[in-house]
């Protein structure tokens, strides 16, 4: 079944796997940089799903949505890295474990 025609389901499954991989990276890696890169993977998974659905259902608006997502992702990366740099100046490390002062 999976090896006959390519269906929307394939693209959605691919998007799902990509999402899971990105999730694993966000939750399990120690370095903040890698976490941010994994966040990009998450966003990409969403983009893929959007485009796929738009293509199969005949909705061109999803492509506009993806456009915006990419833009926002770019802004988010910029800000995130700026924060990372600011923290790095104080903590001298990018390990997330050391950034847990906001606790009880």
């Amino acid at each position, binding site marked *: 079944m999976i090896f006959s025609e390519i269906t929307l389901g394939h693209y959605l499954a691919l998007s799902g796997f990509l999402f899971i991989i990105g999730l694993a990276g966000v939750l399990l890696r120690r370095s903040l940089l890698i976490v941010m890169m994994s966040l990009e993977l998450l966003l990409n998974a969403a983009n893929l799903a959007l485009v796929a659905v738009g293509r199969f259902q005949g909705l061109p608006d999803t492509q506009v949505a993806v456009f915006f997502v990419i833009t926002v992702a770019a802004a988010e990366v910029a800000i995130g890295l700026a924060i990372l740099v600011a923290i790095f100046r104080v903590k001298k490390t990018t390990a*997330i474990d050391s*950034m847990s002062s*906001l*606790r*009880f």
Partner: protein
Amino acid sequence: MIAYTPYLILLLPLVAAVLIRLFLHPFPKIAVTCSVGACLLSFGGSLLLLASGTPSGGMAAPTVTWIEFAGLKANFGLVADPLARMMAALVTGVAFLVHIYSIGYLSKDPSRSRFFAELSLFVFSMLGIVFADNLVTMFIFWELVGLSSYLLIGFWFDRPAAGAAANKAFLVNRIGDFGFILGILGTWSLFGTIGFADLPSRASAGVAGWAVTAVGLGLFCGCLGKSAQFPLHVWLPDSMEGPTPVSSLLHAATMVVAGVYMLIRVLPVLELSQVTMTTIAWVGGIMTLLPAMIACQQNDIKRILAYSTLSEIAYMVMAVGLGVTGPAMYHLMTHAFFKCLLFLASGSVIHGCHEEQDIWKMGGLSKRMPFTYRVTWIGTIALCGIPPVSGFWSKDAIFTATASHPGLAAVSMLAGFFTSFFMLRMILVAFGGNPRGEGAKHAHEGPPVMVVPMLILAVLSIFSGLFPVEAFLGAGHEAHHASWTLWVSLLVALAGFIPAYQIYAGANQDPVSIPLLRGKFYIDEFYQRFFVAGQDGLGRLADAFEGWVVRGFIVRGSGVMARAAGQGLRLVQCGQVQIYAAVFIVGAMLLVGWLIRSGAWK
């Protein structure tokens, strides 16, 4: 004008009490005058009432509607029917004599203003009971009398024994009052009225069954408490901690007979149930005997008289139980005189021996206090029922009533035997022989203020047998005199003197020792073990419960649980972003899963 006299009689002592309490404490002489004057005026008023009304006609003073709801109509009103008038004259008369006596007895006491205030309060309360025209009013004054008794027993409140005795009196009374209240409520619910005037007519309609018995017994409970009958008799001997005038007035002549008076008032209700009447008669019967036996082994002169009082009241109660109220009231009246006389005499002895109350430390008083010695003899003869003195006639009337109940007759005559025994024992030990103590060596008579009331009471004790009591009770209550009870009781009473003389004439210590009797049948100890200790145990249980469950578990526990919950929830704030993210993801997935399950996309 005459119609308001009961109010005047009732309220004058109250006015005196209030005046003394509010203003006259620092002026004992004025306080004393005020109190004695009020009592004298009340006495005058009662004599007036006694003389003016026709013996069989009733007369009610204006009433004030007080409680009126749901069919219960309780007025605050006074009724001056013949019974009330006679009782009022008795109460105020004896009270007046005791007032005079107290002037001498307490002449050196710094708190005598307070004493006279409380005494006036008592007279007011007692007259309230006498004049009350319904059970609720009577109950209010009932409680007031209990209060006065508490105040007077604990007059010397710096003595722990006095305080304890006052508490005991009040609490035991309260137990009786509980039954009394139930009886009052039962009366209202069964008969629809609580006024003494309506009771005869409503009661004769007849309601049979256990309800009436219960109501009757409830009312009898009040009598048990106030008149100190078994099982609530334990407070009377202890009440002797109060000053002797108090013992004579309250706990011999007037307050303790309030129970009998109340029983006579509610007799229509009691008569409906034979069970109730039999119970009352037998409680009275047993109570004539037991205290008489206990008194044979008591060494405190006042306690001997206290147990004698218990026995005599039991005669009255027994008479009521047998349905003859005439002899009951007759004996009430004569007993008031001679018992009051005996107590005043004992007070004179105590005063003369410088506060010594143990008869084994007295002795030889017949020569040092001859007047007291003679009046004591008069009182004793009256008490034991020896003719021709008053006590004989009243006691014999009661014995006549027992003629058809051989059990009761036997018990009460046996009590008469013991009464003679312990009274002669008391006289021989306290007055006879040689002085055994320091106080007795220097004994002397009291001042005239103490002597004169005793003299008057002695005269009354001798001659009050002639007073036509029955005329004041209406028809159907005349006392008859059967011949065989007359002779048998007389013989038994005289027989009681013989062993007493043989054992105690010239004795310097008590040759007889019966621990059961000296220990008052250990009833007090039984109560202490069961009720007081049981109450303490319950109290401790409640305290443990309160400490552990309420204070510990609920109050502190809720605090602890809140704290623990807070501590637990604290752990959520770990500061680790990845953990927050993980929780977030899990939550989101659960949400999505739930949405899919509920078919949002199908």
